[in-house]
Every structure is written in structure tokens, then in C-alpha cells.
């Protein structure tokens, strides 16, 4: 696990690329540890962080690191609230506060298992950096609501796509693609990230087929480093896990279900 510098730092925006409904934020982040795939950072705009809808945002927002390219870190954004909206407005030359890399990322495949990347919506972000690390051997299966969001699939290479409305690729849930892939060869390890209902469907399917899965979870989070105890998710056998320090990547075996409340202040 890569450790984060013990302070937030100011990073300069080098690009903001439109990807259908999403944006890819690029920042220069030189001299900090290489993140493990699945690790995340807390981001806040350096200027005008606050005073948006409902006089928010106040807290930084957690984002998976989607890619590292030399000294640049990439993040996938979707405008879903005052925090993400402000970040989407950033232009080259402006600055963001960043803290990270944080949390526990994906563990490498074992027992010769074939990696499958299963992502939904903006949750595809950590699977891009994971695909970079794993190389061509991983199948990428991505689910989106509609055509505008399916444009996000270009973040990964050679992805098979499902959309809820059938506008791109298979019409239906991502788990249709996953079921077919696992039917072909179940000696696999599933890496999944996406909205809670999708993750729960992936978890249940993998559990029923005895396929191991690592789930990158999302939860409302104030700090990202274990201080606030806000990002708790119920652990199998009682008690809670902190998504920021025990996760964000959690072995599916550690959960009875993926909490439907999972979802961050946006």
C-alpha cells in the first residue's frame, strides 16, 4: 500500500477532457508515491470551494485514481452535486487540493485466476489503472445507463459494454455480461466497482458461483484517512469496516451485502 504525504497539496490542472457525460481531470502530481490500483485521493478546488448549491461543498470529495501517466494523475468526474460540479468547472492552470494516495487497493490475482474487470458508471475509474497494471489479460465489462455515459468506456481498452437503454452494446445489466463470461470460464477473479445495486448484484453472483471478488466501495467520507468514522459499511459477522482504511477495496467475502446507502456527498 502506498503511503500518502502527510498533508494536502496544491496540484495544477493540466487538462479537462469531455468523455460523454463524464470529464477526465488531469493534474500534475510529481514526486509523490505511485498509487496502487484502487487507491483514491481526496480532492477540493483551491478556489470557490463552497457557495454552490445549498451553500456547499465544504468537505473534499473522494475519487479513485483512474490513471497515472508520467507525473500526471487522472480522475473521472461526473457532475452529480455541488462538489463534483465545481471540480468539473476547473480549467488548465487552475489548482486543486489533493490528499493521497489513500486506502487499500486491489490485490493481484492468485491461483492462476483470470482477472475480470466489472465496472458501472463512474465506478469504472479504478479499473482503468488496474487494467494498465494487469495488461491485456483482463476482460473489461462495463455497464452504463445510456449512450452519453457509455462514452466513458473509452477510458479502458477493449471493453464490452452494456447499457440500461440498449443504446450501446448489450441491452441490460452488466451482470448479464458477467454471467456469460463466468459461464465460459469460472476460474476467475472479479474486480468490481460501481453503484451499490450493481456491486450487490456482482457480489451475489460471484458468491453463488464461488468466484472470488474484490469490490471497490464508495461511502460518504469526510476525511479519507480513518479519522471521521463516517464511511462505515456493515461487515459480515457484525460490526463495521471503514471504507477509507480497511478499503476502499474489500474482499466480497467480508460483506453480507453491499449497503444500499453507499453513496458519497457529491
Amino acid at each position, binding site marked *: 500500500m502506498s503511503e500518502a504525504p502527510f498533508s494536502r497539496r496544491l496540484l495544477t490542472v493540466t487538462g479537462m477532457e469531455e468523455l460523454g457525460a463524464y470529464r477526465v481531470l488531469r493534474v500534475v502530481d510529481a514526486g509523490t508515491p505511485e498509487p496502487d490500483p484502487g487507491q483514491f485521493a481526496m480532492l477540493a478546488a483551491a478556489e470557490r470551494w463552497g457557495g454552490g448549491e445549498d*451553500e456547499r461543498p465544504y468537505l473534499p470529495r473522494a475519487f479513485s485514481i483512474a490513471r497515472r501517466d508520467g507525473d500526471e494523475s487522472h480522475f473521472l468526474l461526473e457532475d452529480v452535486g455541488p462538489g463534483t460540479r465545481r471540480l468539473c468547472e476547473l480549467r488548465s492552470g487552475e489548482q486543486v487540493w489533493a490528499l493521497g494516495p*489513500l486506502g487499500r487497493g486491489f490485490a493481484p490475482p492468485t491461483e492462476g485466476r483470470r482477472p475480470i474487470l466489472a465496472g458501472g458508471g463512474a465506478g469504472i475509474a479504478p479499473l482503468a489503472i488496474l487494467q494498465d497494471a494487469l495488461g491485456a489479460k483482463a476482460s473489461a465489462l462495463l455497464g452504463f445507463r445510456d449512450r452519453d455515459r457509455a462514452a466513458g468506456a473509452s477510458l479502458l481498452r477493449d471493453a464490452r459494454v452494456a447499457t440500461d437503454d440498449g443504446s450501446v452494446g448489450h441491452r441490460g445489466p452488466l451482470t448479464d455480461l458477467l454471467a456469460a463470461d463466468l459461464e465460459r470460464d469460472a476460474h476467475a477473479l472479479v474486480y468490481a466497482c460501481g453503484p451499490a445495486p450493481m456491486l450487490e448484484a456482482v457480489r451475489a453472483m460471484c458468491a453463488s458461483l464461488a468466484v472470488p471478488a474484490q469490490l471497490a466501495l464508495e461511502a460518504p467520507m469526510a476525511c479519507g484517512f*480513518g*479519522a*471521521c*468514522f463516517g*464511511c*462505515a459499511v456493515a461487515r459480515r459477522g457484525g460490526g463495521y469496516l471503514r471504507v477509507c482504511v480497511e478499503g476502499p477495496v474489500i474482499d466480497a467475502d467480508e460483506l453480507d451485502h453491499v449497503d444500499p*446507502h453507499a453513496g458519497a456527498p457529491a
Partner: protein
Amino acid sequence: MSVAFCGLELAHRVINGSGTFDVIAARKAFGPALEAEFPFAAYVSKTITREPRAGNAPPRLWETPAGLINSIGLPNKGLEAYLAEDLPRLAGLRTRAPCSGGADVAGAAAAAERTWPAPLITNVMGSTAEEFATLVEACARHEEIAALELNVSCPNVRTGLDIGADPRQLERVVAHLRPRTRKPLIVKLTPNTADVAACAEAAQAGGADAVSLINTLRAMALARPAAGCRGSAWLGGGTGGLSGPAVRAVALAQVAAVAGRVTIPVIGMGGVQSAAHAREMIDAGAALVAVGTATFRDPVAAAQIAHGLAE
């Protein structure tokens, strides 16, 4: 230039609010830098209870205009495991004195190299005086613990009233605990009461060495309802506590009111996120200033505030 507080010698005036920094988790996230750059002049643990607690069902957080409502529910591993497992990992923390911007550059540099112990203040909560007594007596036996902070924002099981919201009850509880330890007793006052200064006086009369305030303000958020339905509580715990810049003006008024009525030192907190805010708390009568929610935005916010205060 150290700061004296209840017999402790501190590097500066800025500490953490209970439950807003986890040294053990931060060590995992930040590695050795956590020890080298430890931001707080003393470290206040999260609340420890006699029995383990899992905490409240999620969701536990709600962002408000310039603030945060939390409903965490005091998750902790219980007294026995805290003493056995956590205490060794929380003892021996040290922090640097903030450098002042004075003319004596060499002297300032030398001061900045010097480190001071960051003593451990253990925060405990009981739902009865007897439960508190168990906690205080057990902590009294451990020299790693420099002082105790009493979280009295817990409802009395019989009356339903927060122990710390009722001056007579608060004085009785503090007086019950006073003979059980020679360590300083700090009473963390709740702002959710009719007269916080009367509660502070009661804590002092019971034998407290200091008071700290404000704890969070009771607050609520409603989930956005489906069409045609009424909104219901968003937080798993129903209500929670509001913190952050949204509460700073309230905190300042309560700190000033308390400092005007007691002779024991006051730890002021509530929405402090700059040296100017900390200076206001001190001007209002605080001996130390605690930082909480600002740490969530930047883990070394407290060190920067301490540095700013020294200038």
C-alpha cells in the same frame, strides 16, 4: 516557549477534538511522517466506553452549509482492549514547537528542532456514575495516560437527560469521580443545554481541572423524499451533531460565557480552521484550542494553526 496546562507542559496551544483523529489509522495512511510531523500538542483519544460499541448504522454523515453532521455512535473496542492494544500505540507521541517568525532566526530554528511530548488524554463515557468510575479507575492505573476527558453527552438511563446538560447531576458525577484519580479531569461540556456556564460551574464545583467545549450541536438532516412522501431522517442514528465553520460563532459565545464564570482552564473548540479563529477562541478565554472538522480537510491543519499562532 512551552504552554502549561493542568500540570502538563505542551509544545503549543492546539490539540485535537476527541473523535476527530485516529493515530493508529493515520499511521497506516501516512507512515512515519505521522510521528515526525505530529500536529497536536496533546492527543485526545476517541471516546472509550466500558463495553465495545460497533457504532451507529450508516449513513453517518451529512454535509451542511459550511459544516458536517455526524452520527457515528462512538464506535470503540471497549476499555479492556483499548488499554491492552491501543495504549502502547498511543503512548510516546512527540510534537515540534512551532517556529515563531522572530528576528532570532538561529534560535527559531533550534526551537523548531526541539520536540515535546504530546501527552495522551483519554476520553471516556459512561451512562452512570458507576460506569464512569470503572473507566476512570482503570485509566488511573496507566501512566501512559496523562489526563482524562469525560464525555458527559450521554443520556442518563433513568431520566433520559444528558448527564452534562443538568448542572446538579453533572456536579454529582464529577464529585464521584474526583477522588478516584490524581490525573487531571477535563469535562467535555455539551452545548445542548439551557445554560452551559452553569454546567461549567457545576463541573468545577465537582472537582474538574478543566472544561472543554463545545461538543457538537444536535442536528438533523432529512433524506430527499420520493414524490408525494414526507422526508425522513437521513442519518442511521436519526439525529447527529453539527460541527465545522457553521458552529464557530455559537462556540465562541459559549466559550466566552464559560470562561467568564469558571477559574479552571477552558479548551475552546468549534469550527476553528485558521490561526485567526484560534486567536479568537483564546481572546474569548480559552487556554487551549482544539481542532476537529478542519482536520478532515487537511490532516495537518492543526500544525498550521499552531504555527500561525506563534507568529
